[in-house]
């Protein structure tokens, strides 16, 4: 009965519908990257062209802003990942007074409105006399600040899930604490660290509210888009958006393929050769 089928699969279909809905704007972004606009001010699809893809830096200030965002993103990622990883180790592996206070401190930035964080940072910079020196460094400081929490949470989750028998086994097998860390602990935590770094980069790259308040004369990519939103958006903005989307999909697919490969060989382990005991018992029986 179709009624039954619908009922059983209703939830799944609704879920997939919601999922599809999240991709609609992306489809528009991709589409618009091929757009040949008739008027700068009216944002709609007028005609197909490869022009935008072939001349991505037609507006040089866009590529400049893009460059800035990447610079800041990389720098913030490196610092936040290192500091955050160290902190995650401290919270999971070490016991000290103030652990719960630290946990709270780490959590708060994730739950604060960006406008408030941005405002307070600006207030700090102005009060410290840096009001006239807002730019790359103030942006970087802000980005590291809000990326830290996400790094700690991500690495901490991975670290906490590690079987500590493994480290004991390593020491049982003559590995000193330093060798145990570099040969067993670190390789196993690394995927978490990598994921945290990727998360950190995308958070930094995409930030607008905090950045805008503390940027001075520097322009990042989101700030650039905000600026042109009123004046007329060059379609190359959608090229950037599409490229970003493709990169993230590529990373996702790569990760998925790797884990599927592993699952496949798990499903068909090669059958164990007969043990000596089994062979012996067969011999004895004959």
């Amino acid at each position, binding site marked *: 009965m179709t009624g039954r089928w619908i009922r059983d699969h209703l939830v799944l279909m609704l879920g997939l519908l919601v999922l599809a809905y999240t991709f609609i704007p992306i489809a528009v972004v991709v589409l618009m990257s091929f757009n040949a606009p008739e008027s700068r001010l009216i944002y709609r699809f007028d005609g197909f062209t490869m022009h935008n893809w072939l001349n991505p830096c037609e507006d040089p200030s866009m590529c400049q802003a893009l460059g800035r965002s990447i610079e800041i993103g990389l720098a913030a990622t490196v610092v936040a990942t290192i500091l955050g990883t160290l902190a995650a180790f401290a919270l999971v592996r070490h016991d000290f007074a103030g652990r719960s206070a630290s946990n709270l401190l780490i959590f708060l930035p994730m739950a604060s409105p960006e406008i408030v964080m941005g405002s307070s940072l600006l207030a700090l910079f102005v009060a410290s006399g840096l009001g006239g020196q807002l730019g790359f460094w103030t942006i970087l400081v802000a980005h590291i600040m809000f990326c830290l929490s996400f790094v700690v949470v991500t690495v901490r989750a991975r670290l906490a899930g590690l079987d500590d028998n493994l480290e004991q086994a390593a*020491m049982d*097998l003559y*590995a000193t604490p330093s060798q145990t860390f570099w040969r067993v602990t670190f390789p196993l935590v690394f995927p978490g660290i990598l994921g945290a770094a990727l998360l950190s980069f995308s958070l930094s790259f995409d930030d607008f509210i905090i950045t805008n308040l503390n940027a001075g004369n520097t322009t990042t990519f989101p700030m650039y888009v905000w600026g042109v939103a009123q004046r007329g958006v060059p379609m190359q903005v959608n090229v950037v958006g599409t490229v970003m989307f493709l990169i993230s999909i590529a990373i996702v697919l790569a990760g998925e393929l790797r884990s599927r490969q592993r699952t496949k060989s798990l499903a068909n382990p*090669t059958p164990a050769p007969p043990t*000596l005991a089994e062979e012996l018992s067969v011999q004895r029986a004959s």
Partner: protein
Amino acid sequence: MSQVAEQDKTTASGGEDFDGLRLRQVTKSFGAFTAVDDLDLDIPNGSFFALLGPSGCGKTTTLRMVAGLEIPTSGSITLGGDDITFAKPYRRPVNTVFQSYALFPHLDIFENVAFGLRRRRKSDVEAQVNKMLELVELTSQARKKPAQLSGGQQQRVALARALINEPQVLLLDEPLGALDLKLRRSMQIEIKRIQNEVGQTFVHVTHDQEEAMTMADTVAVMNRGVIEQMGSPSDLYENPRSTFVANFLGQSNLIEGAVTHRSADLVTVDMHGIGVSIPVARAHADGDRGWVGIRPEKVLIGELGEELDAPGNSVPGGVVTDVSFVGVSTQYLVRMPWGQELQVFQQNTGHRRLFRQGEQVELSWRPEYAFLLDYSQDAAAGAQRGAED
């Protein structure tokens, strides 16, 4: 090759030059909880030693102290004369096969097995690893990751990884627990074979009494942080010295009685009006009351007045209350005049008839199979494996 150590209850008799594994007054407390209580143990080199006991008895803690993964609260551990009580695990000539195998998931089988050799900067790693993989028959799996192997294969990798370092003592922490019955049996035989071949001391921790008795030369039964009894499997089984051991290994009938007479070689006990005798070597109770113990398979069951082929202690007045056919044997529950139900196992040799529920029977056993235990001990101790805390 291996030595059968005839030990009295807990202390060992090794001399000053004992070069095996020696634990002296080892205690481990976690806060208010004492896991291991004043333990003394001598394990000679080259023996296959089993530490047997219910969960929570302290056997794993003891093992971890030998491995260096725990530090004793007090006491000392020496190996070959060297004090290793506080030595770090990576400085002890001791390796462990973990219960969960603890194979490194990010390394392939070859590198897992080679791990210890590489840390010790041994040369000729490849040849040794290949030889070890041959020994455990995993050569074809060398480049796979642990997750791609079955449970039995992983177990062998864990064994190989530890053995390859030729430790003075190999510790096995319930390594066969996760395997199914058939695989467990074949692994038990294989591990025993390997121990014979390599000749190193194996210390095997388990809660499975059959496993301990099958594999080990010497078994120590642990309960609540202390060793109840240590000796060869047959020693422990046939002549238990405490109710815990009597119930934990196999099953026992424990019948209360009053000691009436002690001579040079016999102890006579009045067991609810019936006189039974027990050889002095098997009487482990002073005082005027005791538990008379007899294993169910040693009890003969017959019709009233029947002449049993083994004249011994004769106990009339039983009524069969339950009959269970178990294939190999028939297991009876017989209610005695004093209310207790005794277990009787009769092998189905085909020579004797089967009794029916409600029949009146007479029981009998040879005096040399009975034992006498201290009355102050709990007759139910060790009876339910795993229920002990």
